[in-house]
């Protein structure tokens, strides 16, 4: 229960409880000691009373003066513990053990024989056997003290007899409890509020530290550090110092994170810029060749028209690529056509010619093409240019476009450098990096992933490398088929 309370309540409440428990404990111990001491003091008082009675009663016994012995007993017994409540009484016995007089004649009757008889269930010794002070502890807790009264020459003239009831030795818990309750009440009244105040004062720095910790990252670090409590207490000082260090380290870490984020953003911008440049640059070489063709063979109507179509589609590809970079851009793209495949081969022809490569193509399209043309042109051109770069000189590069109702597949095979699947994954994972092939391959993988297709290496192809790209044969916003 206590542990569920807030620390700022726990501590003052705990101190207050400690005060109350301490008061109760001290009272209990004091009461126990009082009870033990009270018994010893009671017995000592009874001993002293017996001595006093013996000395004072001696001449009165010798004078056979019952009245004066009675007066002596009446005055002396008043000092016995419990006498005021009738729980103690004294008597003087004659030499034969009969009551000469007693302080309570109704209980210890005059001339009654005591010694040698049973009193309160306890047998008293005969007068002749009492040679010295004798204390009789009765089973009920009461005591009886018997002491001979002797003349100077040793003649026993009588006896002092004192009875103290058990109730006198029993602690009067009501009487003991009253001051204890008063003490506890005073403790609660005075010390508990003090304990509460001290507890609150002790808990306040901890609460301040907790308040500061709660707001780390939300409030200015300098302000939080100023609000940290500065205590002379070593433990609190350590906590404050640790929190201060934590704030400092978090501040450094946040600055590092901001720098890293900034650097990452810059790197991303750089990668995007490089990718865009790459994607724009790819068709540019072919387009420039087309303009050259147009200037040399522009007289032919067919050549001019075909070349202008090539230029239009190439520029449209670039436009599509650039538009895709604009935020919230709505790209209007047409479906792939067979001519797009021919354009890609045409655009790559200059590079292939420069390396004396022999380009072969095959088209196996059995269904209408519904994939976006700009994306597929970009992928096909990337794959073909990469293959031209990777192929051996004077070797052949085979380009194939296959399509059916399910998917569109484009592959490029050459007999040049072998690209393993592991190497492809490394290049793609590097997100382009410094590898000039990287941007093209990364764009192909991203495009395939974005359109629910794939981009992989055909490891069964030997020698050289065959790279395959495929995507579902459907429009971009079209739902996938039920299978």
């Amino acid at each position, binding site marked *: 229960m206590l542990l569920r309370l807030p620390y700022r309540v726990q501590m003052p409440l705990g101190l207050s409880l400690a005060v109350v428990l301490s008061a109760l404990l001290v009272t209990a111990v004091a009461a126990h000691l009082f009870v033990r001491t009270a018994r010893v003091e009671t017995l000592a008082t009874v001993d002293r009373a017996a001595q006093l009675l013996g000395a004072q009663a001696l001449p009165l016994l010798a004078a056979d003066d*019952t*009245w004066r012995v009675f007066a002596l007993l009446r005055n002396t017994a008043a000092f016995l513990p419990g006498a005021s409540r009738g729980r103690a009484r004294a008597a003087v016995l004659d030499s034969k053990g009969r009551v000469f007089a007693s302080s309570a004649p109704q209980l210890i*009757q005059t001339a009654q024989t005591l010694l040698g008889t049973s009193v309160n269930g306890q047998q008293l010794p005969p007068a002749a056997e009492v040679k010295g002070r004798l204390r009789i502890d009765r089973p009920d807790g009461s005591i009886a003290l018997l002491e001979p009264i002797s003349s100077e020459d040793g003649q026993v003239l009588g006896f002092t007899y004192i009875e103290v009831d058990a109730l006198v030795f029993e602690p009067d818990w009501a009487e003991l409890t009253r001051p204890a309750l008063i003490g506890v009440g005073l403790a609660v009244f005075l010390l508990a509020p003090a304990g509460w105040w001290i507890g609150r004062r002790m808990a306040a720095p901890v609460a301040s530290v907790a308040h500061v910790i709660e707001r780390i990252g939300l409030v200015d670090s300098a302000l939080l550090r100023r609000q940290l409590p500065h205590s002379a207490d070593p433990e609190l000082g350590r906590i404050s110092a640790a929190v201060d260090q934590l704030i400092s380290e978090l501040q450094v870490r946040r600055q590092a994170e901001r720098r890293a984020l900034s650097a990452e953003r810059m790197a991303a911008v750089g990668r995007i810029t490089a990718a865009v440049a790459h994607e724009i640059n790819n068709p540019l070489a072919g387009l420039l060749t087309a303009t050259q063709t147009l200037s040399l063979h522009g007289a032919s109507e067919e050549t001019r028209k075909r070349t202008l179509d090539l230029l239009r589609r190439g520029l449209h590809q670039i436009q599509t690529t650039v538009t895709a970079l604009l935020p919230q851009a709505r790209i209007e793209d047409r479906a792939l056509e067979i001519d797009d495949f021919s354009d890609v081969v045409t655009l790559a022809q200059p590079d292939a010619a420069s390396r004396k490569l022999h380009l072969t193509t095959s088209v196996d399209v059995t269904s209408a093409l519904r994939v976006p043309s700009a994306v597929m042109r970009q992928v096909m051109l990337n794959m073909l240019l990469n293959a031209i770069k990777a192929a051996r000189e004077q070797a052949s590069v085979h380009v194939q476009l296959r399509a059916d109702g399910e998917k569109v597949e484009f592959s490029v095979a050459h007999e040049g450098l072998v690209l393993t699947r592991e190497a492809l994954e490394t290049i793609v994972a590097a997100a382009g990096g410094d590898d000039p092939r990287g941007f093209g391959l990364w764009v192909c993988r991203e495009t395939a992933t974005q359109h629910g297709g794939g981009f992989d290496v055909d490891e069964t192809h030997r020698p050289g490398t065959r790279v395959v790209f495929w995507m579902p044969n459907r429009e971009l916003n079209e739902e996938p088929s039920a299978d």
Partner: protein
Amino acid sequence: MLRIRDIDWGGYLKRNLFLRGVGAACAAPWVSRAATQPKQLRIGLTAVILADQAAFLARWADYLSQRLDARVTFVSRDQYQAVHDMLFNGQIDAAWTCGYPYVRFQSQLQLLAVPLYQGQPFYQSYLIRPAGGAVEVRGWADLRDKVFAYSDPLSNSGWLVAQGQFASAGIAQKDLKRAFFTHGHRNVAEAVASHLADAGSIDGYVWETMLLQGMPAAKRTEVVWKSRLHGFPPLVANPGAESAEVEALRRTLLGMSDDDAGRALLKSLNLDGFIAGQPSIYDSIRQLARSVPGSGVVA
């Protein structure tokens, strides 16, 4: 009635200091002691009255001193014999004693005055027991094997009457479980009230006065038996005392009922006055004493 709280201790001390101062002045060497020192008259008191109230005695002493032209002092003793010893030794001039010692030592005493109690010079002896009937005592015959309290060996009501009644009941002293003297009638009442004794023989006048004053010991006891009337304890003087002074004391005592101060003192004593009295008043005591062996009064 006399009560402790009524005592004027301040006045009492002032008067005593004054008297001591007068005495010291008289002791000056250039002053004739015989010429200046007033006459002294010392009166012994026994337990026949409740004479332990110092303020009352001081007032009574003042009253008598003013009328006797002498310094009157009271000397109290709790045993009758002690007072008589002082009287016979000349240490006191007069004594308020009991009728029994008067008849016993009549030849050595002169009758000074006899108090009037309830209008007559007589009183009774009471047999008392604890109140409530816890002790089965209805008469003298029930006292066999009981504890009995006497007042004084020279007391008529506190011893002599009891001896006569025990004899009449056929109870010897050895038939009592125990008997003891309490050195005063008041103590008899306290002994019986506290059950120290099962019964006691007490001066009827003292017991009634105690009851009148509301004393607990009287309230906690009850009267079982009352004796016939006996002569009230008299004031006696030593025959060798100066006759003029004794006569003056007698006249003053007899005249106490004639003035307010005297009547106030008598009221405190629960008495009506004093008369000269005749020895014949004590004939019943004399007769009783003669019947009791060892009483010291012969036939």
